[in-house]
């Protein structure tokens, strides 16, 4: 079926819109009684617009985009995992180590030779760390490398 992507998106947006619109009706009436515009008025309008838009997408979808399959998709998942792990390790490992790893892995996966990739990571990490901590006196976490 063509336009599957848009149809799924439409369905997802419809669910989102309904949940969003429903939640808006649950808020307690603000103190002092209802006025012309309550906290739910604007979200309700948005709910209507999004429902209309998502129905249109499902009825008249655009042709599908090329979705990555196999190795490309795997590379994408790897990249996202690297970013999440980077955020996770930033404080415990410290900026320089985590950045070397993150930038290194990313540029290695994008096609650089592993050694050059990790050297790029290390150099950029040290430059940014020195620039931020000493040049701009904004502290980035030193982590394991912290000198007491």
């Amino acid at each position, binding site marked *: 079926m063509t336009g599957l992507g848009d149809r799924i998106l439409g369905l997802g947006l419809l669910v989102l819109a309904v949940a969003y619109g429903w939640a808006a009706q649950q808020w307690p009436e603000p103190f002092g009684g209802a006025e012309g515009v309550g*906290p739910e008025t604007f979200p309700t309008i*948005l709910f209507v617009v999004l429902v209309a838009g998502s129905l249109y997408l499902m009825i008249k979808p655009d042709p599908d985009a090329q979705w990555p399959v196999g190795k490309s998709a795997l590379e994408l998942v790897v990249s996202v995992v690297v970013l999440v792990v980077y955020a996770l390790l930033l404080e415990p490992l410290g900026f320089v180590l985590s950045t070397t790893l993150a930038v290194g892995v990313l540029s290695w996966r*994008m096609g650089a030779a592993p050694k050059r990739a990790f050297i790029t990571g290390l150099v950029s990490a040290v430059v940014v760390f020195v620039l*931020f901590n000493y040049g701009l006196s904004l502290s*980035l976490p030193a982590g394991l490398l912290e000198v007491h």
Partner: protein
Amino acid sequence: METIGFLMDGFAVAFTPYNLMFALFGAFVGTLIGCLPGLGPANGVAILIPLAFTLGLPPETAMILLTSVYAGAMYGGRISSILLNIPGDEPAMMTCLDGYPMAKNGRAADALAASAIASFVGSMIGTLGLILLAPVLAKFALTFGPAEYFALFMLAFATLGGITGKNQVKTVIAATLGIMISTVGIDISTGTQRYTFGVLELYEGIDFILAIVGLFAISELLFFVEHRMGGGRDKMTVGKLSLSLKELVSTIPTQLRGGVLGFIAGVLPGAGASLGSFISYTIEKQAVGKKGKFGEGDIRGVMAPEAGNNGAASGALVPMLTLGVPGSGTTAVLLAMLISLNITPGPLMFTQNADIVWGVIAALLIGNVLLLVLNIPLVGFFVKLLSVPPMFLLPIVTMVAFVGIYSISHSTFDLYFMVAFGVAGYFLRKLEIPMVPIILGLLLGPEMEKNLGHALVLSDGDWSILWASPLSIGLWVVAGAGLVLPYVVGPILRRRMNAAMKETPVSD
């Protein structure tokens, strides 16, 4: 005459060594950002926002930095158009048509120099237009009431897809999603918690800066990963400059035409820089007639679109500064900076924050001179950087984005949020949901709701106030036209643009 006084004050702000330094830095970084394929101006400005923020720059300096980046990116876009036949950003597309053939004929240096001069002229015309038009428009905008503002916001969203927009429904969906995200947090007027799910971090709403950086920078990285465009490109040689003064003088009318047309396209809602350069190119082609060798490396074919897109870039600042309603992605990102500096954009800015507005305008003028000076001798340096493969560059850019976001709040929660926005951005871009309306929705959502509320309080709950005055009716009509016209005119214009692209033998 008042304007000249303000402009002088603006120069006084922009000429302080501190601000001048940031203008120079911005112009340099901007050119870099513009010339690297895949790092568009909106993207570049977005990454710099958190940095400008954490550095604790004073508002006028921060704005000067970012506008210089913006102007620089418009200059930089042409470099890869000419040398690689790949536009560095979308508006530079038309520059490929004659720029690349010129480079192939061994006149790369001439094409680069000529386009730098044309960019300068276009930008100057655009900035002069901005100086003349903005105060008038700001004064006019003071008569707007909340109902008019609400209609104006609708107009901004309706025309955002642009006259060449493909699927208007997707623009509407994107804008709605953006506004919906902006409703998260505690409602300002009633104190009701909306969509916070009891998560403390959500009480203050979702910070649009991290949404912007995620949607632009992280999704860009994912796109590069998917297309495996990590490898470098062939080295290009620039050659010697053989541009004669006579050639420059004879193309002055071209540059003037291009700049003026571009400025008009920039100011108008729904047109923007891409259309500006397209119109300048086609009109130039018609004006010159059969004498020109367009598509085979005519120098006028490089100068017209460059003057056009730089004129449009300054023109696009007019609605952003005077009405607080940006018409393009990059100006939307600039608006984000203003809002996070706690400056309410709109007509009042011209009176309440005159130093910032005029400082920025003066910085544009200075920035242009700096850019011209930077671009002619340093072009070789930028060309070298072009050959740095994205596989090293993009991870570093991503890291800078991480650092910027982290140093705002020192919380890793924000980083996860940013990555989530990046992944969402990737899927939405794949499905051709445009990013810019989402950003604009995020930025304008709270203002829209506030104005709607005010209008209805004034009318005692009568919704017809939204279209009660002639002015608001006019705005609604234009908004409606903006939504419907692309269905009528869009296919024709798109076909013409494609035809123009195909006329030239694009070969590698």
